[in-house]
């Protein structure tokens, strides 16, 4: 019902596409792990949390419905390939359990 795919996983622009199918969870937390200390120039949409020490960016997506959501970061310095990973967290609508879905470039 939820899947993630990197459109761009290296360089100055990091782009992650999250696709939601039915039954859709109401809320998603999308985590983007960057190398510790990475500087972010801009984000779209704006992130809700950034722990620069850990390199962890978090987006909170509420009122989620079926469709695709693109999340992107623009960095001042390019990242080498293989240096990032992502994770999508949500409550499974059927079981109510917390689901952690890893995403790799």
């Amino acid at each position, binding site marked *: 019902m939820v899947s993630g795919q990197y459109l761009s996983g290296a360089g100055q622009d990091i782009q992650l596409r999250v696709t939601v199918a039915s039954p859709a*969870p*109401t*809320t998603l*937390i999308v985590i983007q792990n960057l190398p510790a200390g990475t500087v972010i120039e801009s984000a779209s949409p704006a992130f*809700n*949390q950034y722990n620069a020490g850990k390199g962890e960016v*978090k987006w*909170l997506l*509420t*009122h989620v419905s079926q469709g695709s959501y693109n999340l992107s970061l623009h960095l001042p310095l390019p990242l080498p390939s293989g240096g990032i990973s992502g994770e999508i*967290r*949500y*409550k499974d609508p059927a079981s*109510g359990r*917390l689901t952690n879905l890893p995403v790799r470039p």
Partner: protein
Amino acid sequence: MDSDKPLAGGIPMVNIDGAKIRRIREEKGLTQLYVATVVGVTTDTISRWENRRYPTIKKENGVKLAEALEIQMTDIIDHGQPAPPPEPPSAQPSEPPSQEEPTAQPDTAPDAAEPVAPPVPESAASPIVPTLGSRLTPRTMVVLFRSFLLLALAGFALIWWYTGNDGEGQVTASRILPAHATPGIPFPVVIEVTTSAARPFSLILKETLPPDCIPAQGKPQFVNQESDPPALKWIGKITGEHTVYSYLAKLKPETKMETVHQITGGVTVRSDDNPSIPVSGTDSLQASPFHWADRNSDGRIDDEELLSVYEIYGGIEGLHFGKKLIEEIWSAKGYRWNPETRSYEILQ
């Protein structure tokens, strides 16, 4: 007859049609218990109103009665029509009529204007018929006809009751209440009513809060609010498998920390004679310096706690449960309660 008149004390009163009330109630499959709960009186009172012809009641109760019967109040008011023909003695109430009620004429009183049926020759009919015919005045026949009609209606109502009473199916109600809340900070309560009903039906949901609790917003809005102890009441129509009732409440700011508070509730279904179906689920709440969304009381709101909040309360449109503060705490390193300012300090 005046149908809307104040008593000496200035309370507006109305005359209502008891028989009509009973008829409408039975036609709609409403129990006396349901109507009594909506109006806020006992079932004995409803029974008294129905059994008297034109009882005088408070206008306020008349409004609630009409609401319970899902009609306009004018539909049950006696507008001063002349007294209907008298009922057979068995249909009369046991208690003496009030001053407002019309005086019934005795059935046996002969009417000089009534024509007398001509005698029938014995050879032209059975031995019984002419005897009865000569005794039955048109007035008595009207009474007999009405009695027959009443019996037929009662039979129809019984058949409807037994064939159509499974409309509500099995009804259950479950409450989701945070385990703790900080005094003065609103917390949300959700009650989910589930049914296997095949068609829509009416119910009353009642929540009784602890004395130290102040009710706030309701979604849908509760229709009645009493004070001691605070009680919330919803009268609703269930149209689907799941219906959600929610409200916000807060513990009084002076409530002592660590004290435990109980919430009780029940559902009354309109055509169910059982007193009330208790609301199951969580029913106790502890006064705590930790935010209600911080379920493990560790001084922060983690991802799972945030997702739980949105899962349970996020879909309830217009319920202002403090989303902004919760997101602020989630985005930060943590929080702590400041008893001086009676607010949370966000730790960045």
